[in-house]
């Protein structure tokens, strides 16, 4: 059971990574990151079954923080959209070198 959960979590995490690597839309990338976080949560929960409550508490922290992060992140993306009228990251490279 544990092994499957871990494996599933790893797969989910990898999907998230691949999403970040391949997509160009800021929102979708952010969603992929959220996917990765949830994969981690899954791991925590799975481990918590073996070790006790600490893992589950961790998951709560992660969820809370992710929510805060989402709020800030979306605000940033909107601010950017105001300047660029796009959230396609390929068009956003004022800063480079």
């Amino acid at each position: 059971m544990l092994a499957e959960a871990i494996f599933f979590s790893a797969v989910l995490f990898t999907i998230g990574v691949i999403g970040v690597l391949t997509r160009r839309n800021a929102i979708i990338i952010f969603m992929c990151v959220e996917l990765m976080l949830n994969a981690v949560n899954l791991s925590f929960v799975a481990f918590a079954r073996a070790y006790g409550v600490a893992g589950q508490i961790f998951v709560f922290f992660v969820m809370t923080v992710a929510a805060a992060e989402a709020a800030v992140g979306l605000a940033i993306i909107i601010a950017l959209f105001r300047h660029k009228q796009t959230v396609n990251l390929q068009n956003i490279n004022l800063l480079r070198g």
Partner: protein
Amino acid sequence: MLLQHEVSAVGHPLAGTVAEWLWLLPLLPLLGFVINGLLSLVPATVLGPGDPDIAHGAEGAHGEAGHGVAVHAHDSADDHGAHGDDHHRVVRHRFAWLTSIVGPAVLAVAFGLAVAIFLAMRGVGEMSAPFVQRYFSWMPAGSLRIDAAFQLDQLSMVMILVITGVGTLIHLFSVGYMQDDPGYPRYFAYLNLFVAFMLVLVLGASYPVLFVGWEGVGLCSYLLIGFWFSEKANADAGKKAFIVNRIGDFGLLIAMFLLFANLGALDFVGVNEAATRLTFGGPLVTAICLFMFLGCTGKSAQIPLYIWLPDAMAGPTPVSALIHAATMVTAGVYLIARSSVLFSMAPVAGLTVTVIGALTAIFAATIGLKQWDIKKVLAYSTVSQLGYMFIGVGSGAYVAGIFHLVTHAFFKALLFLGSGSVIFAMHAAYHHTGSHEDAQDMRNMGGLSRYMRVTWVLMWIATLAIAGVPFFAGFFSKDEILGSVFLRARESTLADASWLGIPGSSVLYAAYALGLAAALLTAIYMTRMMLYTFHGPNRTGEKERDHLGEAPWIMTGPLVVLGVLSLFGGWLNLPALTSFLGPVGALDRWLEPVVGESARRVTSGVAPEPAHNVELALVGSAVAIALLGIIIAAVRLKPARLVPKAQAPEEHGIERVLANKYYVDEAYDRVVVEPTVGISRGVLWKGIDQGIIDSVFVNGSARLARGVASLGSWIQSGQVGTYAWVLVIGVLAVLGAFTIR
């Protein structure tokens, strides 16, 4: 503290005599140098007579700055054009009078002191050990101890007398010759400094102190050759002299290093003591002697380093007389005589010296045959005569070498000063008419005997002396050298040794033969010089002829004295054959404590007493050769057919080769100088320095870093996607690093 005497000399017979004042000898000319040197820095020229363009040139030179002394020499405005022309603008220095007094006076006093010391030495009679005076410690370093010390012995006494004696005469001559030159005090400063260094050279009690004088005289030679430095040729000649001499000095330095590394001593007394412990004829002592001889070839203008001496004629003529004939160039001979202990231990080195000497003698003599510049003839003659001296000292006839050194100093100084007198007259003549002809080319002379009787007579005396006509000074000394070589070819350690596989005796016989041949040529070219200069019709020019005339007494006076010495110099060391003339072998006896033992080592302890008939034959052949040479020249040469330089046709064939001195200078240029400069510039500087080290390594690493930086900047594309990719690659790399232990 500076002049702390050491007690070592206390027991010496000379202690407490006037010889204690030895240190004053070089100090006196040094004082002259200081005074004249300061005067030369005083901007104080006054315009001399004539030369309207002087004022113009002077004005151009000082401008508002008002540095009058700036007019050291002719500038482009009134260059007389003639290459090697001795006489320049007539601008007398304000303090010329003071220089005229100080310059010769210090020398005269020094000569007086030298004579006094000589008398003191005569007075104490037998003196086997040198009189060494230590003044202060010069270079103490560990086991090395070099003192500033002077050494007086019979050999240095001879040298001192020649230097101060002939030196005084030449200084006096210079007063007349140079006083209208704007650089007059500077000239005397250099000349005085030269004498000071020359005295240090012969007085030094160790090789390093000798070396001080050795390089010091080289410096003065450099300065005096380039005295009229505004002419590139003169400056070139000075530089050439210095650098070529440095090549020789390299040898001398190595010799010193070898001495110290193997004998642990550098003072003459110590070296002579330790030298006897060396293996006779061993590689070490041979190497020491050969390196030392390399030094001699530089200073004394022997093959292969003779090339600077003819060029050195660019200096004022009295300089040629003093430095490049009478004193400095003979330093090599002195050095070998001084190191006779070492050389007598190294037969191969001795043979080398002899061979080089003989080759130089004949080689220079052939070149002398075709020179037109009167001073160049004398220059090659000097080289040739120096070759003789080396034949002498090389073959172990040290006294003969020194003897020839002394007589040569007399007659060659006379010849040079005589030629100076001629040039002085020529120049004055051309100067009056404003002509730009060459005042030193014999083709522009001819028949001068009518205008300058005294010079003419005295020059003939010197010519006969150098040619080896009996009873003139050169006859005795040259004869002694040739005779010694011949005898040593028969039996001596040299004859027993082999040189490059050739038996030593053959080498010495060959040297003898070459010496004879050179004697023949000497007689020819000297007679040629006299004929072209003083005899036949005059070619100076119609207008100029009226201005030719004898030099003032201050110049002819020294000539007369030298003439007397050239006549009777041979009395210094009469051979047994001429015992009717006076006491025999005075110099032999005088130098016995210094070189006697070494000479005996060469002759295997046998006194070189030739059979009477052999000696007669030797002398006879030498005399015959000399007379033959004079006769050939007198018969073959036709001064009347000569045309002035300006109209002279080009030479052809062997004549041209001789006139161009076998193209040796050109060869050296091609083989040594140009490749060195070329490689330095092309390969070392542009290639290695700028090309490899700087471009490839230094700036290359900077370029490399900047290249990598560009790559980094390029990856930093501003794309979040790229960054994420790099991050993930980083993740994989970190995970990978965990698998490596």
